Structures are given as C-alpha cells and as structure tokens.
C-alpha cells in the first residue's frame, strides 16, 4: 500500500509517498510507524496528540475515509490501497 504525505509534512520529508507491503491486519498506527522508519524521520508527534488523536486541522485518511470516524490509529488497513497523512492545516 501507499502512504502519501501532504502539506508541510511533504515539504519536510521531501518525498510524496512511500510504499509498504500489504498486510491486512496491520493497524494504521503501525503503518505510519513503518513509514517513519522508511523515511528516516519521526513525525508522529506532529500529527497525533498523546492520546493518539489527530490535532485539529490534521487528519489521516484510509482510502479517503477519516480514521477519526473508524477506530482511530487502531483501524486495520484491510484491503485499503492508500493512507493519506496531513499535519494541521486549514483555510477557506
């Protein structure tokens, strides 16, 4: 599956995405930890608070569905193809 990075996270990491082997039982949180290893940069604390919830303006989408409305970072990736990771951002 593909983990895509956006906004200031993409600019900081210097890459748009990383590929991970598909493992349906993997949690979204674990997938993001693996993406950190793959990029060599830690960014968990820019996305999630101490309770593992995304900061206001930040979001993690599993095939477009916000994990806040699923099981949060414990959501199983299943057969999803994409995880999209956004640090806090907004506008109008």
């Amino acid at each position, binding site marked *: 599956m593909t983990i895509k990075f*956006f906004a200031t996270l993409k600019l900081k990491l210097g890459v748009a995405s990383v590929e991970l082997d598909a493992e349906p039982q993997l949690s979204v949180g674990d997938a993001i930890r693996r993406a950190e290893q793959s990029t060599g940069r830690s960014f968990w604390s820019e996305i999630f608070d101490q309770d593992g919830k995304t900061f206001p303006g930040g979001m993690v989408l599993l095939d477009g569905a*916000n994990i806040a409305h699923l099981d949060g970072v414990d959501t199983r990736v299943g057969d999803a193809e994409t995880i999209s990771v956004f640090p806090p951002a*907004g*506008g109008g």
Partner: protein
Amino acid sequence: MAFMGTTLRVNLTDGTIKKESTPVDLAKKYVGGRGLATRLLMNEIDPGIDALSPNNKLIFATGPLTNTNAPTGGRYMVVTKGPLTGGVASSNSGGDWGAYLKKAGYDMVIVEGKAAKPVYLSVMEDEVELKDAAHVWGKRVPETTDMLIAESGQKKAKVSCIGPAGENMVLFASIMNEKHRAAGRTGVGAVMGSKNLKAIVVHGDKKSPIPDPDAFRDLVKGKIATIRGNGITGEGLPKLGTKVLDNIINENGLYPSRNFQDVMYDGTAHMSGEALVEKGYLKRNSGCYMCPIACARNVELPNGRKGEGPEYETGWAFGPLLGFHDLNVICDANFLCNDLGLDTISAGVTIACAMEMYEKGYIKKEELANGPELSFGNTEALPYYLYQMAYREGIGDKLAEGSLRFATSYGCPEFSMTCKGQEIPAYDPRGVQGMGMSYAVGNRGADHVRSYLIGPEILGSPEKLDPQAIDGKMQWLFIFQNLTAVIDSSGLCLFTSFALNADDYADMLNAATGFNLSTEQWLEAGERIWNMERNFNLSAGITPDKDTLPKRFFEEPAQRGPNKGKVHRLPEMLPEYYQIRGWNADGTIPASKLEALGIE
C-alpha cells in the same frame, strides 16, 4: 470606545458630503461593520428597489476592532443590496484600507445616489471631497491605485476601487483595495460602478479611542500567542496559504471538477499549495493589517509576471473546476481578475457552466465568434472569456450576468451551480452535508465564509464531525452563522476562529467598546444580524423556497472516492434548521422572533 464616532454620508447626485455621528448606541445590538451597516441599509432603502439604481446605497463599514492591534484588526465590509441575488450583499476585505478609513477619522462611508460623471472620494482626515475621475475611468486596478495615491500626495494613502468589470456593471464585480485584496463576492463592485464612483482614497494617522489601551494590549497579546501556537494558523496557513486545502479536499472526495460533474480531480498534485512551493513560484508570504497569520501568497511565474494569489478558491475555480491544472494559467487568470476587478469564484463557476453547456450542445460554435472552444481542459478559453466578461464583449455580455441568468437564457438553469443566484464555492455538497446546508440557506447566496462548517466536518476544528452525518449538524450551523456574524462585524478576519473561540471575541469586543456584554449576548447579536439579513431578503422577494441547492446534488450521486453514491440530504435537515432558528415551518420569520431579538 473604539469607534471614531463619525460617519460620512456622501450624496453623489447632488455632491453633498455630511459628517454624522456614528450610531454607536446600536453597536450593542449590531456590533459594527456587517451588522451595523445592514441595520442602516434596512432603515434607509426599500429592499425591493433595483440594486443598480440610484436609490440603492453602498456602505463601507469598519468594526470596533478595526484599526486596533487586535490580531487581523484591519478589515472592512461593503454592504448594499446586491445585483446578483437581489438580496442583501455584503463583502469583507482585508489589507489596510479599513484601518486607514478609521485613521482618517471615520467609521463608515454611506454612499447615496449617482454621480453625473465618474468621480472618486478623497478622505484626507478633515478634508473630504469628491473629485473628477475621468482620467482613471477605464483604468485597471493597479494603475488606478498608483495614480490616485500619487494625486493624494500621501505615499501611505490607501485606495479602494473598481476596475473595468465594476464600471461595466458585471454582476459579480469586486471592489479591490491595495491592488490585491478583494471585497470579492455578491457584486458590490457593480453597485459602485452603477453610481459612477471609481474609488475611495483614505489617509490619516488617528488612533482608535480604546478605553484602557494598556489592558487591551495585554489582552490581545494572549490572543496573538494562541493564534501563533495553533497548528492551522501558526504553521499551515503561513507556509502554504489556503491552497493547502487542494489535496485535503480532493483526498476527502469533495473537490468539484468540470462544473461539479465530478467530485475529485486527478491532477490536483500539479496545482496544489505544495506544488506552488515546490515549483519555486511562491516567493514569500505576507499578511494584512495587524495579521499574525500572513496567508497571502506572493508569486512570481517563470514568465516573469508577479502578483498575489492564488488562494484556494481561485486556484480551484481557474483550474480543476475547468478541467485543467496549469499553475501558470491559474496564477495569470488570478492576476487578471485582480486587475479587472472580478470575483474569481463566480467568474470561474460561470465559465464552467458555459463549458458544460457548450459540450452538451446548448451553445453553438458560431456564438463564440471565432473565440476559443468553451471546452473543459482548454486553458486558452479562460483569459479570453474573463476579458470578454469584464468588458461585456461578445458572449461575455451574457456571461457577465452570472451563471444562473446565463443558463436560464438558454433554457437550462440546471447547469448553473448557484444558490439564490450566487455561485457555489469549492466544496461539493455531496461530500459535506452541513456545508451544503450553509450554501442553501445563506443570506447572500452560496458562500463558504458565513458558516465555515468545513472546519468541524473536514478539518476537525474545533472538533471532528462526520461530514456525512446529519444529526446535530443544524445546531452547529446555527452557532457558526451567529458567531461568524459577530466576527465579521467586529473587524477581524474569520481565520482567527481556527484558534480563538467565542469567549476570546467577547473579551476583545468588551475591552474595545467598554460594553461588558456576556459571550451569550454577543452571540445573540450575531443571531440578530442573521435574522435581520434574512428579513431583508424576504422583504426583497427572496422566498424560502430558494433555500435549496441545484438539483444535481440531489439527483446525481458522487461517482467515486469516499463519498461514492452519496447525494445531499437537504430535505431531511431544512425543517430542523428552521425550527432551531425559531422560524415558521415555511421558513418565514414570526413577528414574535423579530420582537424577541429587538429587530424593529
């Protein structure tokens, strides 16, 4: 208190200028800016008049926090009866102009009548006069601005003006200040053009009389720190501007393309806020008066052209909505609209409407008179028809009436993506139920900044709501509409609300005015303003059956992405919204409600 105490009343028909006391006693009920100006408009005009007739009035209004060091304290509002919807029009702008109107000593300018020939208003503190504008009539915004600053003899003078689109009464013409800042929506520029008023030039150095300046300064320091410490206002917006939303909204499956025929756009990465940075087009960010956020984009293109923008809405309206993603074309079109004085949202959505009609055979090739094909993906069409709109040339004369009148004239209004005649912004209602309702019941037609439910529904600010849920959404809409009316009327930028809450605004308003009202009382003022605007619209003949969306959003489900299969669920929410507002089941306002809110 933080009002200057004086309002200018300028009658263009007879050339008289009066200095009147600002009705500050009404500020407890209507705050200032949007609220107070709408109150005066209600008192002074018949809502049924022709918006482009001399009987209409055009009010430039600041709020109590304008020209203070409150964060973003520089905004003003232009309030009038609008030509696009036929209802209340009010459009907000940043930059410096609002603050400088107060520095010149005035809270508001009420413009009446119509000048026999083009004029501009010069406001140099005590010296206020109407001057001949023949030499700048026909000029674009940047040249007009430079010439009038030079004439004023004050390098720091600020100019609010119309471009050719306003002069030609394009129904979605904007009023521009500091060249790049726009009172963009609702066609306020057309009303200014109808009055033969080219510009208002302001200058001064007066301070707003705040009751306790030291206490106020300490208070706003804390608010500024909150804004700077917030992830959205402290990092996301300064670094990437509002265009950070391109990928967010696309990935969430509500990024309209090809006149809302699709809910996603595959080339978004090529024109996003990130791309603007990565391609090296973004040179720096900048901010309006007293703004700690600084979301403005200062761009230089490979062809050497420079300017401000694009922000999210413009980038979308001049790109994915039309089926292309060339950042050079998007930025150049943005610059062109700033120069001509055109609202980018209505301009883009109107061209998108025409493209769908052309592709479906409603517009014949001969009507284009050898102009570029009006086809999705044809970048050549954009600047060509923008120019034609602004000068009302060729088919542009009909496009200048906006998409609803345009499509209706061909017998196919269903292709117009509008509410009450104003074009819908860049969030597809099928992907966000609350925001869709915000469009449908909006007092100035479809717009995104009178109750920005994208905050909770997509961005999770202040808390995350499911965008497809409808339970409890109308209560959120009610609160957002009321709070936004307070923020707009205060003289601050809506973006502060990503970091600040209702109590923060109450704190600053009380410190600036000395009123000492509770947060609930300020929110009630917001509710009063909303009801007053609705009452104006009802009196103007905008019946509640106009509280709806184009039928595309009910009959054509989203075809892909996370919202695949979804339509908008307005019929399930509208009765609840009326109920929460305390209105009759038919959407009219009971006299008891107006009385309870103290609306005469």
